[in-house]
Each structure stands twice: as C-alpha cells, then as structure tokens.
C-alpha cells in the first residue's frame, strides 16, 4: 500500500501580519474606526478638534505683544484684517501686567525676596518629595525654612524668627533632659512649658535688645501689599503645611476610644465640612477679632491662613480616616501584640500604611486648598482673580477677557496638574502589592 499520508517536517516561514492589522493603520482600525458608530464619532470628534484648533491657533499667534491698550490691540489686528473677539489675542495685557499678577503691590525693589523664597521653597521641598534623589543633609534646610520664609517675605528684623527657632531648640533639650531623668509624658509637658516661657517672656526683650545692637534685617513689607500668585502660593503652602498634621490629629481623635475626644473632633469636622469656605473667610475678615482679647488686631493674611488651614484640616481628617478604616483590623491587633503603646503603633505600623492608602485623597485636598485660595479675592485681598477685576476696570484694558483669565487659569493648571501627577508617581513608588 502506497504511503499517501503527508506530514510536513519543517516549519513554514513566518509571514508578516496583514498590513491592515499592524502599524498605524491597524491602530486606527482598532481605536478609531472599529464600527460604523465609532467611525461617525471619530469624524465628529475630528471636526470638533479641527474647528477648535483652527480658531485657537491663529488666536494664540497674534502679534500684539507690545500693545499698551486694548484699542491698540484691536487696531493692530484690524490692520491685519482680523476682527472680533476671536480675531486674535491681546497679549499686551499680559506683558503689561504679568509682574503685578505675580507679586501684587510688593515693592519692586524687593522682588528678589519672593523669588529667592520660592527657589528656597523648591530646595526645602526636595528632601520631602524626592527623598532618594537628594542629599540627606538637605533636610536640615527644610527644618529651618519655615522660619526663613516669613522673614524673607514680610521682612523685619532677623532676630524674631531666630528667637522662634531658639524656642524649639530649648524645648528639644529640655525634653531630652527630663526624658532621661523622668517619664516621657512629663518631658513633653516640661519641654512645652519651657518653650512657652521663652516665647512669652524672654524672647521679646532679648530679640529687641539684639536688634537694637545689631539691626540686621530687611525692610518690612505690609500684608496688604501682597498679591497675585505670591499671595496664593504663600497662603496655599502654609495652609497645606499645617493642615496635614492637624488633619492627622483630628482623624485619630475621631477614631479614638475616648468618647469625649471623639465627639469634640466629630463636631468640629462636621461643622467645618458643612459650611462653605467663604463663610469662614467672612468670619476671618469680620469676626475673628471679636473672638480674641480686646485690642488684638492681627494680620489679615494670617487670619485667612488660619481659616484656610482649619477648613482644609477637616477635609484632610476625613480622607485620613478613610485610610485608617481601610486598614485590616489585623494590623491594629498585630501592633498591640508586639507590645507597642498607642503612639508607637500609630507611628510605626498604622500611619505609614494609612497615609499611603490616602495619598490620592490627600493630594486632592492639597489641590482643592490651593484652588480655594482664590476665594480671598471676595474678602478684598488681591490674589490673581482680585487683580484681574482691577485690571479689567482699568480704561486701557477694559473689555479684555480670554487672555487674562486664560493666563491665570494656565498658571493654576500647571500647579494643580503637576501636584496630581506627583501623587500618581508617589503611588507607583510606594506600591508594595503585586
């Protein structure tokens, strides 16, 4: 019987995939034209994109950089045969006013101070944000920065921030000394008392005496001269810096076994979350002085910062509480079974995990807080939006809309978007799952 079966013994050479399934055509078939409906959607979307770009690009590319008024812009564009609101942007307003949008009415001879402060801010944030890419020693600069920043921005004698710093150093050494001799709780109280005695009683006279002997400092700048992004960033950074620790304490208080502490925290959080920030800012601008001892009258920026911090810390507390609640009970029980006390287990076991879970929420709160700094324009501070109203009221720029708000929106977008990207990076870096 003849052998009729046929078995191929060698592989066929691989053939290239069909041209319609790979490369740009394949990608387009899969992502843009996979079905009839999809193709229609794609065409509509493309038309929309082209329409937007078609009017946006010529609008952006308009040679009005040197104009000094809106009328001049319009006449430049008119000469080019471009009319109407979409004819072209009037960039003259940005060139004319960008310094003001940055610094407000900060004295122009002192502009270097905020600039240096923000470079230092970047340097001080680096060890926190990118711990593994920065030298370890830089953290000391981060520790000094909170004292450096108000001195640089508001000016005045160098001895006041130094005095405040010395208070912390005194508290630390008293704490060390007492902790070695007696219990930790007592040491904490002793350190606090020592620092308060220094700040309340000794610091004032000593700093005064030193500044009269060695008058070293900057020209003081009034708070009402702060404005523009300088104001937004100052309020934002300080409130962000304080709201995280206060939020952690509030979240722990709300989870506490002590009913009284719990109810105080719940009441505070629910009250703050139930009212809009603007009412709290009204309190800051009109009422806060009534709550304080007669004759107290402190800085409006400081009042706003206090209110923004309280507001943000309540939201922060809820975010962190979510993280705490998401931890399995086993983590708490494991910490207890290791014999750790409450603060040790929080510090070593619970918080590192809870904070990691709540990173997206925390950064979301930071972004929200930074955006909410614009609300200060309603109580009369000159943040970018407050300034934009003033600029639009100026006869030269009366009627300018898109360029000005577009610029401010772009700046906010850059800050907020980079914050949200950073949080994604941090999430990826700290991810320990599979």
């Amino acid at each position, binding site marked *: 019987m003849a052998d009729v079966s046929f078995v191929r013994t060698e592989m066929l050479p691989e053939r290239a995939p069909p041209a319609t399934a790979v490369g740009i055509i394949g990608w387009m078939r899969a992502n843009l034209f996979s079905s009839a409906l999809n193709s229609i959607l794609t065409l509509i979307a493309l038309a929309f994109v082209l329409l937007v770009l078609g009017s946006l690009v010529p609008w952006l590319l308009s040679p009005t950089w040197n104009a000094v008024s809106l009328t001049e812009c319009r006449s430049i564009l008119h000469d080019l045969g471009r009319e109407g609101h979409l004819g072209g942007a009037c960039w003259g307003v940005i060139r004319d006013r960008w310094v003001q949008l940055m610094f407000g009415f900060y004295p122009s001879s002192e502009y270097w101070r905020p600039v240096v402060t923000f470079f230092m801010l970047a340097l001080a944030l680096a060890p926190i944000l990118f711990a593994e890419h920065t030298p370890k020693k830089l953290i000391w600069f981060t520790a000094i920065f909170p004292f450096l920043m108000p001195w640089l921005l508001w000016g005045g004698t160098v001895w006041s921030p130094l005095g405040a710093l010395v208070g912390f150093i005194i508290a630390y050494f008293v704490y060390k000394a007492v902790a070695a001799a007696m219990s930790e709780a007592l040491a904490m109280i002793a350190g606090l008392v020592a620092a308060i005695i220094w700040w309340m009683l000794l610091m004032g006279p000593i700093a005064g005496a030193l500044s009269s002997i060695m008058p070293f400092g900057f020209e003081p700048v009034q708070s009402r001269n702060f404005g523009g992004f300088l104001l937004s960033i100052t309020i934002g950074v300080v409130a962000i810096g304080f709201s995280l620790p206060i939020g952690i304490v509030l979240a722990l208080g709300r989870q506490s076994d002590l009913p009284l502490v719990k109810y105080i925290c719940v009441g505070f959080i629910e009250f703050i979350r139930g009212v809009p920030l603007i*009412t709290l800012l009204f309190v800051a601008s*009109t009422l806060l002085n009534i709550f304080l001892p007669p004759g107290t009258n402190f800085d409006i920026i400081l009042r706003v910062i206090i209110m923004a911090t309280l507001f943000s810390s309540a939201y922060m507390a809820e975010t962190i509480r979510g993280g705490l609640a998401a931890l399995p009970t086993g983590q708490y029980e494991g910490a207890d079974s290791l014999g750790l006390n409450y603060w040790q287990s929080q510090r070593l076991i619970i918080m590192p995990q809870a904070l990691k879970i709540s990173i997206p929420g925390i950064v979301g709160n930071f972004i929200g807080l930074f955006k909410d700094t614009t609300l200060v324009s309603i109580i009369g501070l000159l943040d970018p939006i407050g300034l934009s109203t003033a600029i639009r009221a100026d006869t030269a720029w009366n009627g300018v809309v898109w360029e000005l*708000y577009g610029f401010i929106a772009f700046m906010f977008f850059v800050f907020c978007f980079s914050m949200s990207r950073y949080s994604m990076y941090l999430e990826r870096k700290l991810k320990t799952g599979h």
Partner: protein
Amino acid sequence: MTTLTDPPTESFRLSMLIYDTRYRSITFQIIALIGFLTLIGWLVNNTAQNLSDLGKEPSFRFMTEPAGYDINQRLIDYTSQSTHLRAAFVGLLNTLLVAVMGCALATIIGVVVGVLRLSKNWIVAKIMTIYVEMFRNVPVLLWIVLAMAIMIETLPSPREFKGDEPTASMILGDTVAITNRGIYTPEPLFSRSLGDVHLFGQSSLNFNISIDLLVLLAVLIGGIYVSRQIKHRADKIQETTGERPTTWYLRLGVVAVPIIIVLVALGFHLGYPELKGFNFKGGTHMRNSLIALWLALSLYTASFIAEVVRGGILAISHGQTEAAGALGLRPGKIMNLVVLPQALRIIIPPLISQYLNLTKNSSLAIAVGYMDITGTLGGITLNQTGRELETLLLLMLTYLIISLSISLVMNWYNERVKLVER
C-alpha cells in the same frame, strides 16, 4: 472550697491616674474637657467683652426690620420694604434654585463625559480627558468670573436687537433672546388659571404656589402610576403565558393624554419676550449672573462627577459582564440588570457629596452679584446692619442644615444598598 482568690486589692494611688489604663482614659478625658471648656469660655468671654465695648447687644431683632435693598433675581414677591428675614428667604430660594439646576446639568454632563471617557474610540476618550483635567485643575471661582465676563463682553446688548437692521436677532423663531443681560425665554401662562395657594399668610416667609402647577403635577404622577400598573400587568401576562402584550402606546397615552386635556382646559399658552424700549419685556428672564454661575458650577462639578462615574463603572469586574452575556442577556439588559445596580452602589455616595460641594460652591455667587443667601444675608444685610455675629451665625446654620440633610439622605441610601455580609 475556694481555689480562686480575690484579685489583690490595691489601694488607689494618685499615679494610677496616669499609669493605670483603667483610669487613664478618664483622666485624659477630664483634662480634654477642662481644656475645651476653658477655650470656649475664653472665646465667649472675649466676645461678650468686645461686643459690649462696641455697644452691640446680640439680638436678632434686626431680621424683622425693612431690608431697604432690591434683589433682582427672585422666585417670590419681594420689595425693598420687605424684612431682612424675607431677603434671606429669597436668597435661600435662589441658592436652592441654582443648586438644583446645577446638580441636574452637572449629572447629565458628568455621566456622558464619564462614559465617553471609557469609550474605545481613542480621540473621543482623549477629548473627554482634556475636558476633565482642564476643569478640575482650575479654580471654580475663575470659571464663574470667566463665564460672567464672557456673557457681558461677547453677547449682544438688548439695544442691538432694535431698529430696522438689528445686528442681533432672537433665535428659535423669535422666541428666545440671548443678550448680555441674560436670556429671555417664553413663559408658560394659563388663561383660565385656578389661582394660587397662599402659604404662611402674612409672615415674612409667605409664598404662593400656583394651583395650575399642582394640578399638572398631580395628573403627571397619577399618569405615571397607572402606566406602572399597566407594566406590572404585562409582566404578569408574560410570566404566565410567555407572551408580552404590546403596551407602549397605552402607557404613553395614560401619561400624555390627561396632561394635554388639563393644559387645554387651563388655557395654556406661551408668553413671548418682546423688545420694549431698551429692554425685553415679558417671558421668563434668567439673569446673566444666574446663567454664568449655573454653567460654571455645572461644568466644574461635571468634571468631578465624570471621574466618579468612570471609577464606578471600572470597579465592576469584567467577569460580571461576561457572566451576564453567558446567561444570554442582551447588552442593554446587561447594563440595566447587572452592571448599573452594582455601579450605582459605588457611584451614588460620592455623587451626593459632589452635589453637596456644588451647593456649597454656589456661595461664590457673590462674586458675580447673584443674590443667593450669601449675597443677601452674608452680604448686604451684614453690611447694612453691622451685625456680623448674628448674620454669619444664621448663614452658617443654614448651610449646615442643608449639608446635614443631604448627608442624612446619603447615610440612609448607604444603609439601604449596603451589601449584607456574614
């Protein structure tokens, strides 16, 4: 026989207050209570001292005095002779108006954007991503003032509708006028109206409700009820015989026909806005501040709602859809019966908290001059009477009540849809 001995009875020592866990919590709470009460006492004492120095006795009597200012956008009768309380009430209704309108529009945009962002179509998904990132990362106040500025600067003024060759014209067959003072739309009128119900008599909180509207609502609800009964009956027939009777025309009819009959009976017609002098008269006038606030709040909140919706849909595992498909369900049924019920459980709580945010953000109305409760009670009333403490207290209380009631609804919903576990 007693093998168990009593625990050693230690005499109480003062140090046990700190070191013994049985007493420590009480010690700490008492310390916290004393600290808290001291703080409250200090604040109240300062406040009393300061107020008596200023010669202001805390009192809410000013609320019954004439307000003396006008409110241009209002839902109920109000004149400058009305009381501050009435002004606050007008403001509260305005807040609720923009909040309800905003929530509705934001939900529609948010759901559409959230779903489209998951689209397999690359370009559509990217456009939606750009929308979401653009609105989320820019302050809402900026969107509000920008919307207001655009309305004022780019829309035609009523004057441009005048003359033989007007530079602007009304749209939709001369029924809607879009001007820089707001939008004028036709208003529903009833030539054989049944009149109004007057609630709360002569007090500051009195308001009228049109009986026509109530009748229409009653007829609508009745129609929907009957329509549901028809559906139930159809379901039953399908279960017993396997064949579903065609009912859509019946169901549409029982809702639509009574409504049309009532509308004709009441003499329903539209009142069109007309240009008289330098402004439009007649029709419903939505002021530009309301529109700017409404659009800006809706677009801003919609970007957050889109993320909530997207997260909710992504959270439903693909296996659910596949299993439903394996059971033989059609795609529409899969969405309705399998994916949506599960996704809604995830979507609704953050959605309600976005509604809450929108309501609180509506207080930014003061930036564009829309008279919501912050603009009346916390704005002009505060400035005119100089009663900061009382007005701000009332203002915060109002917002707290709104927030807490929304929270209550949310908790009730969470409780209802919670998965029952072991």
